[in-house]
């Protein structure tokens, strides 16, 4: 088995690329989930208003 865990040249570039990709994807996930929570809250409020 040969992996980047073994000492090798340019490891910092490999881990930086994977780390930034993970960060970008995680950020997108958080944005999507927060957006959903906001929309849900707004819809519940408007439905309450409409029901009154």
């Amino acid at each position, binding site marked *: 088995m040969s*992996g980047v865990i073994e000492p090798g040249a340019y490891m910092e570039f490999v881990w930086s690329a994977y780390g930034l990709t993970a960060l970008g994807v995680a950020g997108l996930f958080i944005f999507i989930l927060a957006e959903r929570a906001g929309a849900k809250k707004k819809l519940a409020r408007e439905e309450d208003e409409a029901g009154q």
Partner: protein
Amino acid sequence: MFSYLANPKRFEAFARIAIPVCGGLALILIAAGLWYGLFNSPPDRFQGDTIRIMYVHVPAAWLGLAIYFALAIASFIFFIWRHNLADVAAVSMAPVGAVFAALCLVSGSIWGKPTWGTWWVWDARLTSMLIQFLLFLGYMALRAAIEDDKLAARSGAILAMVGLINLPVVRFSVEWWDGMLHQGATVFRMDGPSIHGSQLLPLLLMAAGFTFMAGWMVLYRMRTAIMARKAANLQKLREAKA
């Protein structure tokens, strides 16, 4: 497809099944791709371990282009047939595509430094991919800048369709221009992939995993957008009554 799913109840039923399926497949494929890509594939003869950057860079690039293509098709369907679901799909895809295009540029830059000796070069592939990223940003900015929802949707659709012209430039730039630093196609070639199976397997696993992940994100955002539009309609009704 869009006609069938244009009914919100049908779309909801479809999304309820498709979202967990996409999420589950994304997790499995990305986990397998990371295992093969980081720990179970050999370093490249010339590039050494930096070849492993390819397993995130190339899927991000493919998605940056594929999502834009899908966005432009959805915009075309909205523009011609006025299917609201097509507009919801287009608007839901934009930030997802922008993030993947950005990840392609960032990971490519990190790969470029040890391989070419520079973070960035203004060659046709890199420049056209940067334009691709800016097209996503332009689409989102245009839609956000116009208050009238219908006008925003139509203007965004026109921009998305015009921007389609950049896709073949990105795809064929390495063939159309000489003296490029960026390498040519290695997977989608007339004579078959030119990379070894031990590198092709993690690449395809990651590409499939990223695709399902993007599918999850777009469908999830579409459900949110439908919810937000419903809330906005209720708000308009309430304000009209007041």
